[in-house]
């Protein structure tokens, strides 16, 4: 099995569902260490993505991701907009015009997405940001793609599981980037909302391929 545009559209649709379902949870994660708008922003952003996908149905996975990137950057409002926008844009560029994506192409795109987030946000691993979900996810995806038995589903599952573990691991960290860093030590003991929403996005990618 390879990933095609139907998968991409299903993925983005499931992202929108996940953001709507977890809107309140993300807001609550963001309240003590941010400006409590992450859930609302992500929900609004992906609802706008759904509208765009309906308006101009994409023909390739890359086109679907590019549309998503531009929409998130325009509609999310908070820092997640340009960060996720850049991630989707870099992944779209990695996919190119391909009609189908194989395990190696998928891993390359996830690494490109992670690199985009790092370039845009200038955060490193351990700063208590979405990088803490994306870096383990990109690395796990690469390892799974390199495995001879690896298929796209295995790569997606590896990425989602690593992102979820990475998000949980932000709980004890002290934030060094973003709004939470203004709180210093008081940011410890809370999950980073961006890492949490990143895990939701990568989990949705599994659901879309299953």
């Amino acid at each position, binding site marked *: 099995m390879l990933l095609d545009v139907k998968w991409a559209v299903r993925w983005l649709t499931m992202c929108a569902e996940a953001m709507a379902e977890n809107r309140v949870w993300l807001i609550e994660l963001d309240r003590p260490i941010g400006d409590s708008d992450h859930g609302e922003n992500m929900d609004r952003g992906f609802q706008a993505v759904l509208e765009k996908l309906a308006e101009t149905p994409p023909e390739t996975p890359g086109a679907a991701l590019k549309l998503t990137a531009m929409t998130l950057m*325009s*509609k999310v*409002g*908070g*820092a*997640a*907009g*340009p960060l996720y926008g*850049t991630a989707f844009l870099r992944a779209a560029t990695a996919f190119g015009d391909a009609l189908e994506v194989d395990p190696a192409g998928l891993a390359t795109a996830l690494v490109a997405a992670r690199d985009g987030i790092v370039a*845009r946000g200038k955060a490193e691993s351990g700063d208590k940001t979405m990088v803490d979900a994306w870096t383990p996810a990109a690395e796990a995806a690469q390892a799974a793609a390199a495995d001879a038995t690896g298929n796209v589903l295995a790569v997606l599952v590896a990425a989602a599981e690593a992102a979820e573990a990475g998000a949980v691991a932000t709980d004890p960290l002290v934030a060094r980037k973003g709004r939470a860093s203004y709180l210093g030590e008081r940011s410890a003991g809370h999950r980073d909302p961006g890492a949490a929403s990143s895990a939701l996005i990568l989990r949705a990618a599994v659901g879309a391929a299953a």
Partner: protein
Amino acid sequence: MTVRLVVVSHSEKIADGAVQLAAQMAPDVVMIAAGGTSDGRIGTSLEKVMSALDQAAGGDGVVVLTDLGSAVMTAESAQELAEDPSAVLLADAPLVEGLVAAAVAAQGGADLIAVKRAAEAVYGSGDSGASPVSSVAEGSVTGPGPEFTGDFELINQAGMHARPAAKVAGGLSSMNADVTINGVDGASMTALMTLAAGKGSLLHVEAWGPDAERALNYVGGLVQAGFGEP
């Protein structure tokens, strides 16, 4: 033609207000505010910033001033996606002070890099009263001395306040000369204001470069005319 400015803030009111403030000192500079989201909330929007960059295109380039966090990232994304990314520079400067300094420099005809530098020079004009540019000039004291120097007494009642500082900095930023006034960068409006030079104060002007003589005469002329003020 001049360099144009785009202001990206989380708040529409901050962006509009900053432009309004800077326009008082730089009435001819095109400044476009891109504050808030497209639906009027707090936040930043790529769509809004890209449309501002479009509106500001056609001059001698665009310098973008931003406030915190996502404003910087949205501006960077917009720069990446712009038709000609090299015509768009992001200034790493405090929004309001940086914008005023950039606007004054642009009004004076400074080029793209000089406008960005004028905004960023604001950072260095803290307690020491010296901008990074002037510390470079201090470092070069071992080299050849200034080509032209002069001392002028401030005769206007209010001394070196905002408007005179804007006139001096604006004019100097368009000249091909490095000028220090009492040790600070003469092309930096905020640095000049930190001199807190009142009526009767003496301004010691040193100038280097091809336009050094013209720059000295320019400053001297303004000061001796009391900047056209009582």
